[in-house]
């Protein structure tokens, strides 16, 4: 009896030690696996869509604590075979815990195409911002897809003090001044739309003024509110498309054409 107990205990201990299960803290920023995900995917998509004027991309958002649904979305989008890249509208984590980012990164690394993820307000909690920056890179970034510049912005002003400019007009300015010559259109991706309380609403109009300065603005994409909505927020013809939470098992597909674009809502 005693011998059996000892053997069993040893076995359990051994099976556990063989896995990487030692954790210092849920917010320890101990990142295992891939880093610099945004940069790698930017290079990949810029190469893949070089010179193209028509392509298709999908958008998912607010995947916090929906690992099963996210996995299903990755499978569903891969299976279609016609999507060139995927955008994630932020909030991949619910608590900002380090492992949440790692789990989501590992699921989304299952995308056969390039994928990009903006920073959500939940991603900022605790040490979440630090984890995001290490795994993905800067929270304001942009990449070129064919003749379109996709500008991804951190708009979670509520989660920062004034030491960080949110939204980052300096970044928008440098983007505007350094646009690659092939760019004819622009798409914006953010987690929180202007006029939402997490956005710095003191600069709503200034933000939209900047957006309008970019060439051929197609639309703005965001998540956060877990709803499916389309609004002309500033009554200037620029549509803001909201992607619902992945919990609703919905993803959006945008087809960029030479003249205009198509918008689809896909249930999976």
């Amino acid at each position, binding site marked *: 009896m005693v011998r059996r107990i*000892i053997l069993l205990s040893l076995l359990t201990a051994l099976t556990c030690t063989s896995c990487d299960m*030692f*954790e*210092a803290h*849920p917010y320890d920023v101990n990142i295992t696996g891939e880093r610099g995900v945004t940069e790698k995917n930017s290079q990949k998509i810029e190469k893949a869509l070089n010179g193209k004027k028509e392509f298709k991309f999908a958008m998912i958002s607010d995947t916090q604590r929906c*690992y099963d649904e996210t996995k299903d979305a990755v499978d569903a989008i891969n299976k279609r075979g016609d999507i060139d890249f995927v955008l994630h509208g932020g909030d991949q984590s619910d608590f900002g815990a380090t492992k949440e980012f790692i789990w989501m990164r590992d699921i989304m690394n299952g995308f056969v195409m390039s994928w990009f993820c903006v920073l959500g307000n939940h991603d900022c909690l605790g*040490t979440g911002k*630090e984890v995001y920056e290490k795994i993905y890179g800067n929270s304001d970034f942009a990449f070129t897809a064919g003749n379109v510049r996709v500008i991804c912005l951190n708009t979670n002003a509520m989660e920062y003090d004034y030491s960080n400019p949110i939204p980052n007009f300096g970044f928008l300015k440098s983007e505007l001044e350094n646009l690659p010559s092939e760019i004819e259109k622009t798409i914006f991706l953010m987690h929180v739309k202007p006029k939402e309380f997490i956005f710095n609403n003191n600069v709503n109009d200034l933000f939209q003024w900047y957006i309008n300065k970019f060439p051929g603005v197609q639309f703005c994409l965001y998540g956060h509110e877990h709803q499916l909505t389309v609004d002309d927020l500033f009554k200037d013809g620029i549509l803001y498309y909201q992607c619902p939470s992945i919990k609703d098992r919905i993803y959006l597909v945008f087809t960029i054409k030479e003249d205009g674009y198509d918008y689809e809502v896909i249930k999976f």
Partner: protein
Amino acid sequence: MTMKLLSFRVYTIMIFIFSSFVVQAQENEIPRLYAMNDEIFSDTVIQRSSHSNEYDRRIHSYRKAWNALIPTHTKLQYAGGMGLFSGGIGWDYGKRGQWETDILLGVIPRYSSKHFKFTLTLKQSYIPWSIYLCNNFNLEPLECGLYFNTVFSDKFWTKEPERYPQGYYGFSNRVRTHVFIGQRLKIDIPEKARFSSKSLTLFYEISTCDLYVVSAFRNSYLKPEDYLSLSLGMKFQIF
């Protein structure tokens, strides 16, 4: 003058007589008083001794209370969501010492963040059984309990800061609640070889915290090795 003198004498005599009566009366009462005094006296003795007893008892219980606060053991723990390394003091109590309470200070290394952090853990364990194996070795086949951990860093809050609408996030990112089960091996140190502790207990624990339980709930993608974490530790029994 003579009258005055006389009256003085009379007064004196009267006072004397009266006072002698009083004395007599007192004398008459003396035995009773003595008897009473005896009682009082003996009572007083008891009272006096009980007063000093009360004092002794109070001092005794005062010392006992503070003595009970002397930690009975120290613990070192590796990992377990309370810092990569943590150590602290603890108390065991209960008829068979089956309860343990520990306070542990831990360190989270910097890893990829800007600063390293300190954490504080309050841990409560229950160790229901101890099985004698062979000389000096005892197996404690089950240890279970929970611990609360807090991080010292201004990135975390217990109550949401005022900038958020009330209950916006609905949780505290500073305080974590963990539950754990584990097993322990207790090794008694022979008296000759004792230095500062009388026994050494080696243990491992499998734990999970509130955030992971909530995450694993309704997600089959997450496997036990994702949301469970392992820790190893040592307990030094001082007395």
